[in-house]
């Protein structure tokens, strides 16, 4: 798993490619040798490499939203948090993930868990609160790595 992420974090850097020295083969040249296109998952996940960070989930308050303890989440700090986004927030000395709800009419902000065992948190002026970034993806292993 650690190796996977090494590649993720280095997605934007030039990764040295293993190039097959074709001229060493004396046989018929491969007709596919010009087809170097490939699928790059990190490109699909990371749109702003400069502002993308990763975090590990600890806890089950977002279980019903499909975010589980031990998951890896991708955070894009450049995105503005909109009503309904899952956000990495810093509240009263702790980083957490919740759904961000913003009630325009009442001018109030909520951090909403997705697990009936937890209650929504109303964010007030008294809270030391910042939205650290918006969660764009979670990476969940369905089989031990």
């Amino acid at each position, binding site marked *: 798993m*650690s190796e996977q992420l090494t590649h993720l974090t280095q997605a934007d850097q030039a990764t040295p490619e293993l190039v097959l020295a074709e001229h060493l083969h004396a046989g018929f040249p491969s007709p596919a040798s010009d087809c170097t296109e490939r699928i790059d998952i990190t490109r699909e996940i990371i749109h702003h490499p400069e*502002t993308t*960070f*990763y975090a590990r989930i600890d806890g*089950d308050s977002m279980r019903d939203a499909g975010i589980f303890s031990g998951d890896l989440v991708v955070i894009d*700090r*450049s995105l503005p948090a909109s009503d309904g986004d899952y956000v990495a927030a810093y509240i009263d000395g702790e*980083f*957490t993930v919740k759904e961000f709800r913003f009630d325009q009419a009442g001018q109030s902000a909520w951090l909403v868990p997705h697990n009936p065992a937890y209650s929504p948190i109303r964010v007030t002026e008294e809270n030391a609160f910042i939205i650290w970034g918006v969660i764009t993806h979670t990476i969940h292993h369905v089989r031990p790595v």
Partner: protein
Amino acid sequence: MFALCDCNNFFVSCERVFRPDLRDKPVVVLSGNDGCVVARSNEVKQLGIKMGVPFYQIKPLAEKYGIVHFSSNFPLYGDLSSRIMRTLARHTPYLEQYSIDEAFLDLSHLPDTSSMHALCVRLRADILKGIGLPVSFGIAPTKTLCKVAADYAKHYAGYRGVCAMDTPDKRIIALKDYPVEDVWGIGRRSTAKLQAAGITTALQFAEHSETFARNLLNQPGVNTWRELNGEACIETTDLPEKQTITCSRTFAHPVTDLNLLEQALAEFCDNVARKLRSQHSVCRQMLVFVHTSRFNDDVRFIQQTITFAIPTANTQEMTAALLRTVCGQWRPETPYKRAGVILMSIESDNGVQQALFDTRDRERDQRLQQALDLINNRHGKRTVGFTPNIPTDKAAGLYNIGAKSPAYTTRLQDIITLKC
């Protein structure tokens, strides 16, 4: 026109990205094992704590005011720095990175100062939100003036982090109160000469004649004088290249074990050789030093310059030569406290002279080195190498890394945890 992007209290700001609780707290970052202050938050600056002071000297103050201290975390600072540089690079045809936290942007492609100002305001907001780091911009016709402008942007809240010095009037007003010793490129010796001539502000210097500047300070001083008068003439790429590459450390505890010392030196050697290769250079000379504490009367030294007949950047060759030298001079029961490697006579790796009686198979060496570099680049710095193999718990005791924050952005094990 240029803009200088300068990060505010860079190392401290990097630490705060992942520690929002320290936003308004006094924070310092210390140099490796030397324990000197290398970065200060504004709160710490206000306490009158100077750059470079040993931490133990300010310990009582630190306790009194609850100053939080960190050891330098270069993987983190380097990664956040490269994020800023890549963000900037998208908005200028020519970005000149000047240090880990400073870069010049050529903005000549923009039609007027107000669009330059607008771009810098936007970049500042993007970097603050997207990366979490506060930066300041100075816009001016020359790099020396950019430095002055960025200083104003940083220290006067009214500028909101972006100061444009685009007219002669603004230039004169800014330079009038600017101490000449703070001007970019004016060192201690120049300051002394200028002060002896009765010059204390940048404006006084700029208003003298070019001949005066030449007679007092020679060519570099003339370039600074021209730049202060709005004539761009300094290319940072023209600044003298680094003539030496150094890696040295103070150990947390005196090292009496030869194997441990060898391990540390091999690691230093690997570091400097890698730097050498990354800039496509080779070196002809390598200085190695090991010594006991400077605070003892009886300082014991190992110091020797090793000369390579054929300039090299090969870790294996360099490590072997270094360990041979140190083993020959090492004395048992001697508490070595500091060691280091300095590379000298650095030249480009183009056109290295071959020697007739060379005993090394250089082509093979090079292939091996390339293979090792490839593996280490992919799987982490010290996956394979020539270091003597020491149990890690023993080697871990070499340095104090107590106050070092995690490598939040470059190691999967170190990423932040979100309580959920």
